[in-house]
């Protein structure tokens, strides 16, 4: 690898403490360097453990009962509806992103800006070197979101990729976008992501199979946290 490794940046990266220039450098390098990604793994574990070093605080009495009442009320009211219908998913966003896991939250926040950069770089590379290694899959907006566009960056035989979405409708609280990887009619989740008020969002993809083994891709609106299979409005689609 021609680019210098970023080992010194990894602790700050895992903590979410890097400033923009360092963040872009680290994210760009990590996207292409398994060695540094491996090094990052240990720093994630260290960050995860930091919570244990804080002096313990006892939650107020009755908090557990409050939580259980809240989810049981919610289960009676909203939970069945969430999986069967998605009323009015498009709305102004809340301040919090809806993501599947904390690990993905941190990863997405840190890599968001870099993904676009990566895409642009790959596009530039393709322009300069016809037949270069990366492929861009264009995703086009459906009738539900005709203004939306998406760009999926994939590499031959690689399970890693990146998705950049522009002009997607911001979602109401409790909803998120989910990428679907489609092969032989079967749909596998490629990850859950949110978009900002401008409709811009990114997703780092780590699939089980090489991304170029899938025939097509789609993005749907799903309950926050994602669904086992697509249930909501499709806003983007495209194929290899």
């Amino acid at each position, binding site marked *: 690898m021609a680019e210098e490794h970023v080992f*010194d940046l990894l*602790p*700050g990266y*895992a*903590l*979410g*403490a*890097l*400033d923009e220039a*360092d963040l872009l450098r680290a994210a760009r390098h990590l996207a292409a360097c398994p060695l540094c990604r491996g090094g990052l793994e*240990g*720093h994630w*574990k*260290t*960050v*995860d*453990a*930091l*919570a*244990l*070093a*804080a*002096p*313990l*605080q*006892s*939650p*107020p009495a009755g*908090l*557990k009962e*409050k*939580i*259980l009442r*809240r*989810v*049981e009320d*919610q*289960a009676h009211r909203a*939970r069945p509806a*969430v999986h069967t219908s998605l009323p009015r998913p498009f709305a102004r966003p809340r*301040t*919090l992103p809806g993501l*599947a*896991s*904390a*690990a*993905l*939250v*941190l990863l997405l*926040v840190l890599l968001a800006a870099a993904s676009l950069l990566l895409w642009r770089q790959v596009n530039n590379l393709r322009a300069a070197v016809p037949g270069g290694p990366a492929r861009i899959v264009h995703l086009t907006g459906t009738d539900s979101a005709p203004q939306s566009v998406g760009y999926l960056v994939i590499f031959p035989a690689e399970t890693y990729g990146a998705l950049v979405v522009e002009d997607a409708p911001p979602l109401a609280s*409790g909803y998120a976008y989910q990428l679907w990887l489609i092969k032989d009619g079967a749909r596998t989740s490629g990850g*859950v992501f949110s978009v900002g008020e401008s409709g811009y969002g990114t997703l780092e993809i780590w699939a089980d199979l090489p991304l170029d083994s899938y025939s097509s891709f789609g993005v749907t609106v799903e*309950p*926050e*946290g*994602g*669904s*086992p299979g697509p249930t909501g409005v499709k806003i983007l689609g495209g194929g290899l």
Partner: protein
Amino acid sequence: MNLSAVDDAALMEMIAGAHPEAGVVQSEALGVLYDRYGRLVFTVAVHVVGDRETAEEITQDVFVRVWEGAAAYRAELAKVSTWMIGIARHRAIDELRRRGARPEKLRADWPEDLGAEHLEGLPVLDGPEEEVESSLERRVVRRAVWALPREQRMALNLAYFKGLSHHQMAELLGQPLGTVKSRVRLAMQKLREALSQVGSGKEPEK
């Protein structure tokens, strides 16, 4: 069914309604997770936002999110506890930023504690299967944090509990950016080394 001996991942399946065990009440499974991690989630929230009332709201939100997102949980990506603590930390830092908390108003010191010399007899928070491991890990992490030079400990606190970047820390502390970066890097490296000894089943040398 006695859920206290059920591991976290199986509890998540129960909450998602996907566990084969019939008759399990999903909220009971969530209650067991609360018994195991509620205090830790609340602790993280308190140390980020600085007040118990907001921390209580955040703790509620975390468990509601666990409830709503249980079906999407993937054990291969993170332990349940890691996932929950991550949600709590980000939700709390988001709240801090929403309030427009100015960095110079933030407390730089690591949260007040009795220090490394008083770490024996810590309460057990987890299920019996993880009791020994987690207690050991907690002791190791706390000792390692308190063994750091104060400046490094402060940098960790500002990054982890207050969500500050290197640049913001440098401004707050009145230190060169490179100095702050070095403190963060050295602190994380030392902690990582200390934690690596947990996996070996022995406590690090004091």
